[in-house]
């Protein structure tokens, strides 16, 4: 920790400078740096020298416009960040381009800021991107905005002109529900009202830009809100399973009972993990930490942990306001990738309410009513994901209330989720019937696997009666279902009720029983399902027969291994008692043999593992097979 208080690292605030092209943003930044003595030594002379050599007038903007192409064209292409210090704090100044073509760079700059200075040319007045940037600042969640009416020198520092621009732009901001902090008359080239009050504007009694900056507030982390802890990754360093992530809102501490979305599994926090830090103090919003759990449950990247009392929504549809940056428009009938916190899901445009020109708020009408959002347009729409995702409305919790959309290789749009009376914690019953439009004529195994995002296979449980096969298999089925996988349990008793009601328990009938189940399981796997079977299946030869029916890697033999006396004590159906009393003939383990697998894919010692741990073991194995799989260490 730092020694003296006076030497403590200073507070930092990020400010973005936005506005229409050529209204003087970069010039303002250059001047601000000069007037606050923040220019590196020799920088001014260097830039003056370069300008002279190139035979062009010196431009303050060249300080920020570092790229040759920017200096050649005298415009800012990409956003840049530089630092300067006042008595009060350190500022990160983010210069954003004003040209419409570079809107994605403006968004990149602005999305990282805590406050904004919007520059308007007093001479040219309010322009297209003055309005568009105002709209986008609001959409990006920036609430602290000051407007600089620049180039007042070209208007003879006229108060009337200043008021004219202020009135016009204030009306625009009001129409998009933005309340600016202040309007300031400046002349960036001359330095008027930037670091000190200008003699040219005696009528101005408001603050200078510098005073306004110091008046902005550093945003506070949302500690007081409900907990949202999206899992970024799962590590298994040093034989411990650590769930790593950043607390996006709320606080988390040891002993907290957590519910993980979208699986709805629960467990409690055993420890908070940080490296080179003593103790296990609670973690607040913004902290990148790790946690371990008291009970091992299967959790992977994308899960969002919350407290049971305040869970997020968990649906496949939500309403949003979106801006589009992609070269290809956002279109109905195409699928995209949604990224929300650490979740990723396939997403499609469900319904388009309206498309707007963000610089006029005009509704854009397409000639034939086509449902699309073109580059640089904004829209109000409903999105539909292929599997349920956890989210909040941005008005409730910001980090889990916004998202980006990836088209191909590129982040092509971003948006915020708006309120819409979402039901809490109920599965959206609609989402399943919507998957039809991805299918094509002849369906191959690979296509099925692609649609399901997993291949079909058979998870074959074998073990003594009472070893835990049914319990684990049904739990596994539920877990897979919650993960969006297609799984089905073929239960021994159910099969004997119907399909195999003609069979008894002689070695021959047992063999036929297994053969039929094997064939059914094979069909299920071929249909793309994860077919789970839970039969004693005592004979090695019979199981190997099924193994041979299936392709390589498709048969996953799970040996549910528990000592006989434990199975007997459990005896959930009272069968051991009956067998011992001689009421059941040829009961495996009592009056019929059990041949344990020699090389099962998975062995579960259910005398040592809990049901959840057993399920986790299998899920981790399946994940290894899954080519799209989450990274496991």
């Amino acid at each position, binding site marked *: 920790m730092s020694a003296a208080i006076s030497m403590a690292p200073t507070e930092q605030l990020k400010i973005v400078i936005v506005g229409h092209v050529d209204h003087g943003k970069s010039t303002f930044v250059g001047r601000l740096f000069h007037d606050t003595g923040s220019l590196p030594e020799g*920088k001014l002379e260097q830039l003056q020298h370069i300008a002279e050599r190139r035979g062009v007038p010196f431009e303050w903007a060249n300080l920020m416009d570092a790229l040759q192409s920017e200096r050649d064209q005298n415009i800012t292409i*990409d956003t840049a*960040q530089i630092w300067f210090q006042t008595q009060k704090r350190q500022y990160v100044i983010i210069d954003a381009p004003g040209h419409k073509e570079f809107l994605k760079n403006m968004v990149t700059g602005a999305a990282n800021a805590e406050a904004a200075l919007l520059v308007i040319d007093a001479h040219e007045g309010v322009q297209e991107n003055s309005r568009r940037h105002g709209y986008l600042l609001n959409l990006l969640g920036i609430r602290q905005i000051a407007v600089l009416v620049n180039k007042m020198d070209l208007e003879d520092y006229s108060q009337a002109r200043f008021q004219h621009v202020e009135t016009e732009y204030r009306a625009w901001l009001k129409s998009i529900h933005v309340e600016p902090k202040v309007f300031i008359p400046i002349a960036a080239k001359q330095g008027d009202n930037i670091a000190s009050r200008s003699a040219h504007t005696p009528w101005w009694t408001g603050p200078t830009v510098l005073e306004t900056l110091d008046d902005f507030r550093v945003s506070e982390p949302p500690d007081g809100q409900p907990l949202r802890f999206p899992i970024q990754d799962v590590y298994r360093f040093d034989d411990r399973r650590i769930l*790593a992530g950043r607390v996006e809102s709320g606080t988390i501490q040891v002993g907290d009972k957590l519910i993980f979305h979208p699986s709805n599994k629960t467990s409690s926090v055993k420890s908070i993990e940080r490296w080179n830090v003593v103790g296990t103090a609670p973690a*607040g919003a913004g902290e990148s930490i790790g946690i371990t759990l008291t009970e091992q449950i299967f959790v992977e990247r994308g899960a969002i942990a919350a407290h049971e009392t305040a869970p997020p929504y968990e649906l496949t549809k939500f309403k949003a306001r979106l801006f589009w940056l992609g070269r290809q428009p956002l279109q109905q009938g195409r699928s995209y990738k949604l990224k929300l916190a650490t979740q990723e899901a396939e997403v499609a445009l469900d319904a388009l309410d309206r498309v707007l020109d963000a610089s006029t708020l005009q509704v854009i009408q397409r000639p034939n009513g086509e449902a699309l959002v073109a580059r640089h347009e904004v829209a109000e729409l409903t999105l539909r994901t292929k599997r349920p995702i956890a989210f909040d409305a941005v008005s409730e919790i910001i980090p889990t209330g916004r998202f*980006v959309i990836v088209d191909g*290789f590129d*982040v092509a749009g*971003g948006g915020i989720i708006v309120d819409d009376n979402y039901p809490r914690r109920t599965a959206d019953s609609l989402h399943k019937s919507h998957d039809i439009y991805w299918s094509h004529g002849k369906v191959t195994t690979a296509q099925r696997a692609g649609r399901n995002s997993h291949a079909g296979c058979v998870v074959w449980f074998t073990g003594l009666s009472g070893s835990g096969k049914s319990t684990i298999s049904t739990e596994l089925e539920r877990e897979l279902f919650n993960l969006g996988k297609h799984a089905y349990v073929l239960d021994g008793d159910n099969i004997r009720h119907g399909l195999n009601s003609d069979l008894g328990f002689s070695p021959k009938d047992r063999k036929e029983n297994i053969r039929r189940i094997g064939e059914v399981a094979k069909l299920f796997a071929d249909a793309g399902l994860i077919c789970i079977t839970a039969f004693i299946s005592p004979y090695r030869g019979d199981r190997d027969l099924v193994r041979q029916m299936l392709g390589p890697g498709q048969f996953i033999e799970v040996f549910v291994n528990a000592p006989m006396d434990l199975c007997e004590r459990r005896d959930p159906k009272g069968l051991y008692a009956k067998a011992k009393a001689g009421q059941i003939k040829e009961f495996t383990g009592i009056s019929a043999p059990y041949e344990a697998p020699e090389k099962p894919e998975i062995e579960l010692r259910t005398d040592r593992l809990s049901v959840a741990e057993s399920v986790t073991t299998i899920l981790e194995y399946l994940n290894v097979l899954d080519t799209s799989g989450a990274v496991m260490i």
Partner: protein
Amino acid sequence: MPMDPLSKLENQSIYIFREAFNKFEHLAMLWSIGKDSTVLLWLARKAFFGHVPFPLVHVDTTYKIPSMIEYRDQLVREWKLELVVGKNEEVLRAGRTFPNGQATRVECCGTLKKDALKAVLDKHHFNGVIVGVRRDEEPTRAKERYFSPRDKNMEWNVADQPPELWDQFKTDFEKGAHIRIHPLLHWTELNIWEYIERENIPIIPLYFANGQGERYRSIGCFPCTFPIKSNARTVREIIEELRHTNTPERAGRAQDKESEDAFEKLRRDGYM
């Protein structure tokens, strides 16, 4: 309560490290032995609970200040790091270097650093490379992204960078391309030293003033890196010095100054 500024920077860097590790199968980290990449290494251990779960790549020009290599090998032993060394043997054998008078400074950086880096990335099929550059170092870096794509020729298309918002990064890209990941992008030189002090991170002594009143502020190859006048002998004194200086950090790095856009060109072509 607002988080203290250094913790804020640290938490953001850890988040970026973890995103990179999750998203890239063949990940490596460049290690230049300097203060930034050593802080980077420290943050990696924070992110992965004491582990560094990917190899470090050091591009050795053979012109590094000798104590840098000693320091490198010592940390590799102590922190149990996996080190991959890249070297442009061909150019070195042929002697086409600046110190030999056979190349300009910029050409020399191009072959001994940039080309050597490309060779080592190709050889090991790395598709994600963590680099410790910061926005405040020099103007083209001020425009960098946290996840910054390079095409198959390692070129940086600076005129068309991906949007980056709300910590959603570019992690999808064409085959053959790679992504530079910059977890320190938002740190300043002063932040780096404040953090070194807070965490007590071991730093190569070249940064501290010697008996002649000189220290290195930025370290690299000895023919192109010059010490500055300074009496700062401790981390605390360096922090104090930086709070009152107006001299840019890379003032002692000669390759930046060969022409107006020398460094921009180098970086477009794939330099760090």
